């Protein structure tokens, strides 16, 4: 999976304004974004084989800016819902659909946001069948 994505930077169309951050400094960066009155738009998680790539999208006057963290599988990510309450829903979603552990979500649905007991967990992970 990683190989296919390894296209040279200049060849691919990619999203501008991405800033990579480490998991440990994530909350500080998010707080800064909040202080600068950025509107939290959403998060996107991607399953990149051995790790999850999580993008935080912020908007300011119609311009998007993004933070990116990479979380190795098996590790957890702190919730930003203490800063942006708005994130609780999408964090629950990512937690449930990707199986990425997100800790301390303001309203935690315990992996039962969309799916009920008995449905295969983490269906969005790449190792799950497509149908």
């Amino acid at each position, binding site marked *: 999976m990683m190989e296919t994505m390894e296209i040279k930077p200049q060849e691919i169309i990619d999203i501008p304004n991405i800033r990579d951050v480490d998991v440990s400094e994530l909350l500080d960066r998010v707080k800064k974004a909040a202080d600068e009155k950025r509107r939290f738009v959403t998060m996107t998680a991607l399953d990149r084989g051995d790790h999850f790539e999580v993008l935080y999208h912020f908007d300011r006057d119609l311009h998007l800016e993004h933070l990116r963290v990479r979380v190795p599988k098996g590790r957890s990510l702190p919730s930003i819902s203490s800063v942006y309450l708005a994130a609780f829903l999408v964090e629950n979603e990512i937690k449930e659909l990707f199986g990425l552990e997100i800790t301390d979500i303001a309203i935690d649905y315990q992996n039962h946001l*969309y*799916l*009920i007991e008995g*449905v*295969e967990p983490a*269906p969005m992970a790449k190792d799950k069948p497509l*149908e």
Partner: protein
Amino acid sequence: MNILQKSRAKSPWILHYDAGACNGCDIEILACLTPVYDIERFGMVNVGNPKHADVLLVTGTCNKRSARVLKNLYDQMPDPKVVVAVGACALSGGIFHECYNVLQGVDGTVPVDVYVPGCAPRPEAIMEGVMMALEKMNKR
């Protein structure tokens, strides 16, 4: 047709449950209520409460969570009752029938009496479906 059967045919009260639709079917059902289609002409009212309903209109890809609700609602309806499945999703899952959270059609959850195909079915088709269901109910 005795008076009871006639009354039944003339006063179908509808319960609509969206078991996971994209809204397409739902707004068409709502459109049936509006002045242009006005199903109240046939005495149909959307009662929104299983205990009063005669006809259960189900739309949408039943997923596992809504299946349990659907079942509960069906159980709470008094006899005689009929179920009309509306839209491709409710019939088979439609375009979503291979998705992970989707059951292929509501007939696995509740017994369906009439199938209304389409995505979304037109209000005319839905009305036709309900009337067919009533006929079936009165034949039972």
